[in-house]
């Protein structure tokens, strides 16, 4: 599944669903809201473009690595400390491809997918700067 969602998700459900007779390993990455002295974050997306970009990243990963499945879920809206932000689940016959593809996908998301984070603190709010300015 590829989705931008306002709803929470259960990583375990997607990990379990990636099991297949050809799959020997599943690597997942779950991004969560870290307490950097904040009270909450708000995620905003250019939803239609972000969804297209996530599909493109999945296609890139499927062609570059020997993997069998990719799921990417990215939340938007207001989130609290500890909430899930993003989930990537990669299934593969062998672990190396799954690890490499999972890291590739999160790096590509941070580079290109039009999603932004606003942090709220007791002093106000700020847009989180990009890692790829």
């Amino acid at each position, binding site marked *: 599944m590829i989705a931008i969602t306002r709803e929470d998700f259960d990583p375990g459900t997607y990990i379990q669903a990636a099991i297949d007779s050809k799959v020997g390993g599943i690597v997942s990455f779950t991004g969560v809201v870290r307490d950097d002295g904040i009270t909450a974050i708000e995620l905003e997306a250019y939803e239609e473009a972000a969804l297209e970009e996530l599909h493109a990243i999945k296609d890139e990963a499927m062609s570059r690595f020997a993997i069998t499945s990719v799921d990417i879920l990215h939340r938007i809206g207001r989130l609290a400390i500890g909430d899930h932000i993003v989930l990537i689940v990669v299934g593969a016959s062998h672990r190396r491809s799954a690890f490499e593809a999972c890291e590739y996908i999160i790096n590509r998301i941070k580079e290109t997918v039009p*999603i932004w984070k606003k942090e709220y603190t007791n002093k106000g709010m700020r847009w989180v700067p990009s890692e790829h300015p």
Partner: protein
Amino acid sequence: MKVLVRAFAGFRDVMGESTSYDLPDKSDLSTLLSLIASRSEESRALLFDNKGQLRGHIILMVNRKRVSRTVIGTLLLSEGDEVALYPPVAGG
């Protein structure tokens, strides 16, 4: 012709989320950017540096495809096009 401009993150704070602009037929992207900048000093400062150059970090999309700044002066817009402007992304 009418073109829809959508802005996101810090750009939305300045330019508003979604604005329709009226342009002469066959206008290019640079004409649209100049029109947006003419609406407020804040918008101008957001888009252009003090030499009138489009700021380097701005990302542009036309109909959900990224466009290079090298084509701003030649890319002709059409009725109903959706142009998006936004700062570098920070998801994940």
